[in-house]
């Protein structure tokens, strides 16, 4: 029998490790315990607890902040899967509050109104793991440099239009390809151009991928959207407004889970896509004003 074992908590390995366990899965935005149960029953690997889904934040405007702790606790009590929650970019105290609530993962998210327009949270200071959005490799590696243990594409949240999520994962993939093909001599200049820490650029060259798990987010609304993001190399998907803004959330949630797990089985994607009712109506990103886009938040 083992005795007097020294345990280390909050290490980068256990932070990044939880993200590894979520791979191939779907993380769903939920605003109350009932939705959280629907998500869990559909096979979600985690839920994101928030007061308003991104499409409502867009519609209603105002300042979007961390959710009410009471609502978060209600969701924590309703499900056994991990519960994530969002803090504003740079809002150290919202993050500390979420950590005090024993949240499983914090999303330092551009979907909320940024609290700091210059700096992100120094996530290495925390025991709780963070996921952050990125549009390209440089942004992803800056966040990892600050301590993020998981990355997601930003996409354009709350639109139901997958085009930006595709653009961002394609950009990350192109940037990784460039790093992988570069000689050692070229790496420092590439790091400078990407605005990324040199050591992490070197690590990407060795691993031929991001050093942490990378999910898709921002605009995924259908099983085929989810399967598309998996095909492009994402490790899993976040679905925000796409589920609970559709006409049959329970059925759609399950279909997206199944399409994500079996993304290259097109017969199956076809089968689960049948009779889902209306997808969220959404909003075409191409017709949006630049000032209405939120993916640009983050530095």
């Amino acid at each position, binding site marked *: *029998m*083992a*005795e007097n*074992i*020294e*345990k*280390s*908590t*909050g*290490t980068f*390995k*256990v932070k990044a*490790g*939880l993200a*590894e*366990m*979520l*791979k*191939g*899965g779907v993380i769903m935005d939920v605003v109350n315990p009932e939705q959280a149960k629907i998500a*869990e029953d559909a*096979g*979600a*690997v*985690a839920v994101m607890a928030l007061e308003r889904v991104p499409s409502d934040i867009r519609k209603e405007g105002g300042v979007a902040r961390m959710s009410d702790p009471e609502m978060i606790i209600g969701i*924590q009590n309703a499900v*056994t*899967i*991990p*519960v994530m929650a969002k803090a504003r970019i740079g809002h150290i105290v919202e993050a500390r509050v979420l*950590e005090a609530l*024993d*949240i*499983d*993962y914090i999303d330092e998210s551009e979907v909320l109104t940024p609290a700091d327009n210059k700096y992100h949270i120094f996530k290495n200071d925390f*025991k*709780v*793991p963070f996921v952050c959005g990125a549009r390209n490799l440089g942004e992803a590696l800056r966040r990892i440099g600050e301590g993020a243990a998981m990355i997601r594409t930003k996409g354009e949240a709350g639109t139901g239009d997958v085009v930006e999520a595709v653009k961002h994962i394609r950009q990350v993939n192109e940037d990784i390809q460039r790093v992988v093909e570069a000689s050692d001599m070229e790496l420092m200049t590439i790091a400078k151009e990407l605005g990324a820490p040199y050591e992490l650029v070197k690590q990407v060259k060795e691993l031929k991928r991001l050093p942490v798990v990378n999910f898709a987010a921002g605009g995924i609304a259908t099983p085929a959207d989810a399967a598309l993001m998996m095909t492009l190399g994402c490790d899993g998907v976040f679905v925000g407004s796409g589920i609970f803004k559709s006409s049959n959330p329970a059925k759609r949630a399950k279909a997206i*889970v*199944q399409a994500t*797990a*079996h993304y290259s*089985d097109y017969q199956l994607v076809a089968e689960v896509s049948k009779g889902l009712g209306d997808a969220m109506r959404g909003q075409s990103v191409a017709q949006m004003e630049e000032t209405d886009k939120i993916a640009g938040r983050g530095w």
Partner: protein
Amino acid sequence: MTKIGVLALQGAVSEHADMLRRLGVDVCDVLDPNDLDGLDGLVLPGGESTAVGKLLDFYQLLEPIREMGRKGFPIFGTCTGLILLSKHINGSEQLRLGLMDTFVERNAFGRQLASFEANMPIDVLGETPFPTVFIRAPYIDKIEGEARSLLELDGKILMVEQGNLLATAFHPELTDDTRVHEYFLQKVNVYKKREIVVGR
């Protein structure tokens, strides 16, 4: 060549596959029942057990894997894999394979902030302690029948075997230490030899 399947519905699949390849075995993803043909063993990786249980059922994998496990086919489960292998999941009706005489408590150490790393002595792996990684981990609070504890800490059983079955509450696939996988491959070799004696 030994061929091991890794259940690839959801979770830390590639980590197991990489470690098995390092040990010189052929590895394939298991996504539906056809993928079980010709395997010498199966790994059930860590993931979210409620999600994986539902997907196992949806892809009609639950019954064939259960049947193979009953007949002596080697199966190694980590974390979620341990939960799926257990007959008893405290307070839960979730879908499972239910092959081991173990009573498992889910998320037993607490939420993510309680996840930890520690070096633990595991007798069957030799003298050097094993670098265990526990992530929202379960533990076994009781075993019965043929199940045998291989690691226990403060009354919590963290590694268990039962004939052809092996399970850990921790994640050896997240480390560089291959000893738990090697221990599983010993079971696979025993199973392969027995097959030859039976002379199929």
